[in-house]
């Protein structure tokens, strides 16, 4: 029993962490939190189910297509909902524009796909009960993304450029970095990570349009607690969230688990608005 709580908690935590990383990648490139983060996760599951279960494509092809779909949505987010409002960042119009886009994608999915949760196909034909693929796939995806991002940021030129943009947008532009292309690439990358989260967690979450607001909320919790833009903080906070939620789920039931998560989230945020590890002081006058 304890094993299954730990397994499912860690797996859910990995999915939340991946969505949190999705938020962070978009945030680093644009200083914008996007409501489409959870939507990307949802779309990863739906596209996986569509390509593999419904259209019968090979698993690997379906996987690549799902990620490509996520990348495309990431780019659409940047063009439609982020770029037009970047000029007036202080008016926070991005909250509304990304919300609008997220709702559009979510409603489109509900109508054109299904309003009911649809099954996600089993990807590999291995039968092991204790450590099932529905648990290790998200963990593998999360580990892969974290390692991949570290390598990207530390060892590649484009990774350095991403960091430069995240650190100081103006200085980076003054150095001649192609800010717009880098931002679009970041959003495409975020799209891939988000849809990977949904794809890897497909068996746990199913292909369901309402996963979008759920992931948008639970994926943001690690961002807020781990400090914005901080991927390591996000992974730690994501795993804690997953374990806490599954434990509470088991001990007091699903509803009160949500209430508990929400309450803890609010209390921590009120006590430390900058997150558990972050520190932010900004000059206002």
């Amino acid at each position, binding site marked *: 029993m304890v094993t299954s709580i730990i397994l499912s908690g860690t797996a859910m935590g990995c999915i939340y962490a991946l969505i949190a990383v999705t938020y962070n990648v978009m945030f680093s490139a644009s200083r914008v939190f996007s409501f489409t983060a959870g939507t990307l996760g949802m779309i990863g599951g739906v596209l996986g189910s569509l390509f593999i279960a419904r259209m019968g494509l090979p698993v690997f092809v379906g996987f690549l297509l799902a990620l490509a779909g996520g990348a495309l949505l990431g780019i659409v987010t940047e063009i439609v909902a982020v770029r037009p*409002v970047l000029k007036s960042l202080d008016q926070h119009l991005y909250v509304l524009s990304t919300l609008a886009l997220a*709702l559009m994608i979510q409603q489109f999915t509900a109508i054109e796909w299904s309003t009911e949760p649809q099954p996600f196909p089993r990807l590999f034909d291995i039968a092991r009960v204790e450590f099932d693929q529905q648990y290790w796939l998200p963990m593998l995806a999360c580990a892969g993304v974290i390692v991949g991002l570290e390598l990207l940021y530390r060892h590649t030129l484009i990774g350095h450029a991403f960091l430069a943009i995240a650190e100081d947008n103006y200085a980076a532009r003054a150095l001649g970095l192609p800010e717009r292309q880098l931002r679009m690439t970041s959003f495409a990358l975020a799209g891939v990570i988000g849809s990977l989260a949904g794809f890897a967690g497909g068996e746990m979450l199913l292909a369901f349009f309402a996963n979008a607001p759920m992931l948008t909320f639970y994926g943001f919790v690690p961002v807020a607690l781990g400090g914005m833009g901080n991927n390591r903080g996000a992974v730690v906070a994501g795993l804690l969230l997953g374990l806490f939620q599954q434990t509470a789920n088991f001990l007091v039931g699903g509803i009160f688990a949500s209430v508990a998560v929400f309450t803890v989230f*609010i209390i921590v*945020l009120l006590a430390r608005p900058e997150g558990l590890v972050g520190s932010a002081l900004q000059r206002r006058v």
Partner: protein
Amino acid sequence: MDTKITKTVSELRPAGANAPAPASAFATALPFLALLVIGIAFPLFGGGYWGVIATRACVYWVLVSGLNLVVGFAGQIAIGWVALLTLGAYTTSVLAAGNVLPALPPYLALAIAALVGAIFGLIVGLPALRLRTFYFAITTLGFATIVTQVALAWQSVTGGGVGVPGPIFPEPFSSQWGFYYFCFGLAAICTWMTANIAASRFGRALTAIRDAEVAAEASGIAKPALLGTVFLFSGAVAAVAGGLFASLQSYITPDAFTLDLSVLFFIAILIGGRSSILGPLLGTILLTVLPEFAAPLVAWSTFLYAVLLLVIVLAIPGGIAEMLDFKNRRPLESDRAIVPRPELVARLLDTAPDAGTLTLDQVALSFGGVRAIDGLDMEIRPGQVHGLIGPNGSGKTTTLNVISGYYAPQHGAVRLNGAALPALTRHQRAHMRIARTFQTPRIVGSASVLENVMIGGTIYGRATFVESLLSLPRHRRDEAMLRKTAMLALESVGLERLAAVRADRLQHAELRFIEIARGLMLRPSFLLLDEPAAGLSAEEIARLSTLLLAIARAGTGVLLVEHHPDLIFDICHHITVLNLGKTLAAGTPAEIRSHREVVNAYLGG
């Protein structure tokens, strides 16, 4: 030319400035009266089904009217307000059905729901005091999800997925049209109440918090108290709407309260436009009715709302309200001049008390390793203009921010007549009659010039929120007083002709004078000016100096942070020169002018 100007003046004179202008007030009320008449007469031509739609629009508006103060006025992105509708619907239904307690009369149940809604409105809203936009939006979203889940799970009370019957209001409101009139009446009352708030110091303070938070604080507006009150009100009316909604549906299950509904409420406000009552009202009607005209589109309605939201945000951020704002389309004169009337300043400031002196005593403050101010002594006396000059980065604005409570000095103290001012209590400074302006003018762009100036006098209002809600006599006296004083302040700085114009249509120099007028509304003992002459023409600077001298002559101590040596040497009684956070020199203009180091380092010799 002359006649044209006179005409413009009479056109621009706001309602009730000096003499009430009933025509303008009537024009504002006209759309509401038209809607009132249509609403009352509706049963004459509406069929049974349209009656349900009309009732629904009324119920939605009861909620949206309150949410409008949160979203449209205070600018808080509360997207999960359906949670309070759910809460109100279940509280009313459960109490009226007697699931837990003996069954209560529906009106009492509705009143209790309002109370519960107010409390939860406050709980959901409070994080807004600490959290920034996206965070707050996410917490309301999370709350909305959880309330539905609780409704689903708490079967013994809410009936779980099976649901509970909604309350039935007794005669004369039990029939379809009877219930319609009940909802319509409440909707009309909500319209009236929120319109009262919108036109009160509370409404102006909310928009100030939204668009110019630091200016709101400097004007003595306490954000926690104000937002808290608004969340209480907004939660209460949302819960009442929930009770009505339950009665209209006649049976409620958790499915009825989807996030789509929340989106509808939220978008109705944005389509309507911020700082408007009429806009969101039309937006609510539009969004309720629209799907009925296009039956095949019903499934797509939320998708269409989202598209509308995107279009509004990207193309017409002002919403319906801005499209209907014809009077601000008229071109302004292009070559208008600011002609202050310093002789009026004494009339405006005549009640300012003698507050003693404002002293800085060995104040020091560093940011990281940078010593922004390093042991600064200064004394600002009433009736004098004190100049604070120095190169960029010498600590001038930081000094001003320490005095007005934005930074806590790490060493030393700021004293008013000997008593140390508590640090970091920004909105308290206004109560001590310390007013300030900002390096970049902090103005509510969507409000009129007059309203912007009235914000400065917020602390002199006596009416409570409830009195303003119901437009009781004290509220009306407050408004008349603030309007009159603000008009006088505008005349003093020479902008009275622009009183009714939207502030974001003005030129930069005019915004600087608006800020001074707003500061004068406090009848300040001390007025702190942060580079008021930046961006002004030579002629405007000359007018500014006569204005500042008049302000000092009326007894106010003026602290002038400036870069223009002419202005400083012309009007200052005393000058402090800063360099790297330390006093380089202090004395009369003549002494400073001949101070060798100052001339070398700063003035150029």
